[in-house]
């Protein structure tokens, strides 16, 4: 069955220039492996198709049950020059948690 990432994890977005940072933190330690397997850098890049235009990289932090994603060319040139309403890309954390992943029943 499919489940929304929102049910399993929480997230905070940050910005550095035109780069976005997105954490994915499992509510339950036992879900970390599932997230690690399903929420890959490629899956996040596809989820944000047309929004994150550059590379997406992922860092694994098992002791925090967390993944950290870094997306380049993601903020319309950066907070100071973008035409986007959400100049910092702060709402991208919620967008990431809209991702659906396949889990065993």
């Amino acid at each position, binding site marked *: 069955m499919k489940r929304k990432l*929102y049910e399993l994890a*929480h*997230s*905070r977005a*940050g*910005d*550095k*220039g*035109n*780069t976005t*940072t997105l*954490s994915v*933190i499992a*509510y339950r330690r036992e879900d970390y492996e599932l997230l690690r397997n399903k929420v890959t850098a490629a899956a996040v890049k596809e*989820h944000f198709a*047309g*929004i994150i235009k550059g590379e997406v990289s992922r*860092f694994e*932090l098992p*002791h*925090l*049950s*967390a993944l*950290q994603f*870094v997306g380049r060319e993601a903020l319309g040139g*950066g*907070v*100071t*020059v973008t*035409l*986007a*309403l*959400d100049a910092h890309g702060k*709402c*991208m954390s919620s*967008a990431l948690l*809209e991702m659906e992943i396949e889990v065993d029943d």
Partner: protein
Amino acid sequence: MAMGATIRVGCGAGFAADRIEPALVLAEHGSLNYLALECLGERTVALAQLRRHRDPNAGYDVLLERRMNGLLPLIKRNSIRLLTNMGAANPLAAAAKVVELARQQGIHVRVAAITGDDVLNILDLDQPTLETSEKLRSIGQIVSANAYIGIDALLPALAGGADIIIGGRIADPSLFLAPLVHHFGWALDDHDRLARGTVVGHLLECAGQLTGGYFADPGKKDVPEMARLGYPFADVDAEGSARFGKVAGTGGLISVATATEQLLYEVTDPSAYYTPDVIADFSTTNLQQIERDVIETSGARGKPRSPHLKVSVGYHAGYLGEAEIGYAGENCVARARLAAEIITERLKPHLQELRVDVVGLTALHSRTMSPEDNYCPYEARLRVAGRSLDAAHAGLIGEEVEGLYTNGPAGGGGARRSVSEQIGILSCFVPREQVVTQVTYFES
């Protein structure tokens, strides 16, 4: 884990426009040794430079007087030393203003102004920007260049007995690390302790973002009494281990979950977090809940600091024009989209960059993340944004959106328009030895 003798460092503001009164609560009831106020963003310092160009006595944080008027008697009474980057583009004028405020209240303070972060006059304009690789001299009219300076700029003022230390582009975590290095006598090449102190600074620097601010999601991640959010402090020992808490009776929440979100906030590589002081490895940092609203950190590692300092370069980026108009009821999204087509056809020839969104569907990420294509909310609001090098062209956006009142789709209402001057920010490096910081003392 047992902790040794500790000192307590609090954070009373996490950005320029942050709430005022949580710092007063910390200073009055927090049993602090040090209080830091982090009030400077990339763009904030560039805007402050513009204010200083217009008035040589301006260019410091616009909330300085309001924040300091309340804090002065409290930090004096409770012997709290204060560090802040509210000096922005003019630390000397900020320090003079604080001394003036203290005199008015009959309070004696020794204030240190930290200067030297302004590197506009020594910048090599033939070097490329870190973001775009184009030469600095070709990005447009440069209005500011401020190097991120660290603890080595602050330590002389702490040793010199300053009660209040005011600088400009001090790196956020350095405001918190400096008191630890000063108090415990850590060596500047003790990379692991510097890294642990940097973790303390990074967790504290956004104030409420550690104590449940920016965390709440009703029914999923509930945070109590957010209208009275308490700001955090840390008790830090000589090894750099730290316990984080907040004043009893304040609102908010400190948990491993709030701290994990903040630990990773704005971190582009958890194993190499660059500051002017150290390269900190957060990837081995442990977070542990000790009791309700108390967590403990331990275990970061560090590597030697970079020989270069990062510089934030501000430049004129033209004018942003924005305008909105709303539609309601059945078919409102279709009417907003028709308005978007009309606006785009009329504005495209006049503006290099134009963005048209429906608020409620595409305004935040440029497309919806919902799989439902035909979703129609009760209200839809058209938002148009564009940039131009001159204010008149940027103003066309508001004119055209307002023109929809009589020339656009049915039932448009609540039009709003604005034009604002834009300062862009790009970065470069400067060799550390070229940045010479100074301490100037003022006494009331």
